[in-house]
């Protein structure tokens, strides 16, 4: 007998990564906060370290609508225009 495969392979998506900067010196840092408790404090601390120890010029933080969704278009658009590097993650 033959049985059919119930699974699928996810659709392939081409993804192009921007080259990582050699240094954070003078770079503008974006911080994307996922709304979980303390994630803003953690990212703020990371931003301070990036400024104090790695010479980043400034930081800016955005807040997602909630932790289950990708960063919304407004964040993406402003990040494209206003920062060089983004730090994001899931704090839980």
């Amino acid at each position: 007998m033959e049985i059919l495969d119930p699974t699928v392979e996810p659709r392939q998506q081409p993804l192009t990564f921007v080259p990582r900067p050699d240094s954070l010196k003078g770079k503008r840092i974006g911080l994307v906060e996922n709304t979980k408790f303390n994630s803003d404090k953690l990212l703020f601390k990371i931003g301070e370290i990036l400024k104090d120890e790695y010479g980043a010029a400034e930081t800016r933080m955005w807040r997602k609508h909630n932790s289950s969704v990708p960063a919304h278009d407004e964040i993406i658009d402003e990040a494209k225009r206003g920062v060089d590097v983004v730090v994001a993650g899931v704090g839980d």
Partner: protein
Amino acid sequence: MTTELKSKRYAAADVAHAIEVAFEKGWTDGLPVVPPTEGAVRAMLDGAGLEPEQQIAFITNRQVAVTAEKVAINAVMAGCKPEYMPVVVAAVEGIGDPRWGYHGPATSTGGAGVLMIVNGPLARALDFNSGDNLFGPGWRANATVGRAVRLVMRNVVGTLPGKLDRGTLGHSGKYSYVIAENEAESPWIPLHVERGCRPEQSAVTVMAAMAPHQVYNQLSSTAAGLLTTLCDAMRYPGMAGQPNYCVVLAGEHMRTIAADGWSKADIRQYVFEHTKNTVAHFKRTGRIPGAVKPEDESTPRPLVTAPDDVLVVAAGGRAGTFSCYIPGWGSRTSSQAVTVVIKDRRS
């Protein structure tokens, strides 16, 4: 139907071997599955009048298209009859709806299941249980339709426990969590009609849901008395700002509340008003951050945003002074209950 089924095929010596192949491939929920042969899968597709390549849902976060062929294969594996297929399809449409927000409830450490409430003539025609042992075993439709949806989540969308299903505890409703409303005995407007369907339509409502919590009151003979107990049970363990709660009122409680002339709208309003905590309570019990301020003692915080976020369902055994409530998962912005009409695509 002559359209080719495109899924990869595996050889098996016999049924017992096919069951083992499914285990080895990681396709099951831990229980044996029915081998998905081409004949069985075609019968499942015919049961809903669907062509194999038709898209039932698209899960954006995973970039996965859920086709009728894959839903049918998983429905066969779950043990569904072909006539259940339209219900499975409607439930998959529901969890693919952006309002349900697949990624959050399917993935979260919160460990939600997919509560499916079936309403309308099909619920009775297909013998979905709406009575005794409501959440328990014993009914093929309830057991296999929910199982099929979970297998679709696992096998098609990749919601694998420990990988993209990170539930810390989960609950047994994640095997199958399907009930029907007892419309034959209910004195109230059915859930799907309250949510915009016509009475002659059948529908399934999907809600990202935690396990049911049973509530007992053998003493009260009034609606307010019974609902006081229910609200007391709901209130203190409640979270701050869930999208939905489902209240399931079983036979004796249903009849007592209805005898007082209360509608579902009255019940929702009462539950909404009587399950409010104070902000101080949430702070003291570690659900809201920050120190308790004097004004927090008198600042109310409801469990849900509005009375309509409480889904009231008449279901459960005729005997016994029990009802239950089911907390929803997450927040209003991350997942909301969705009602989908079960379509008859057979011409």
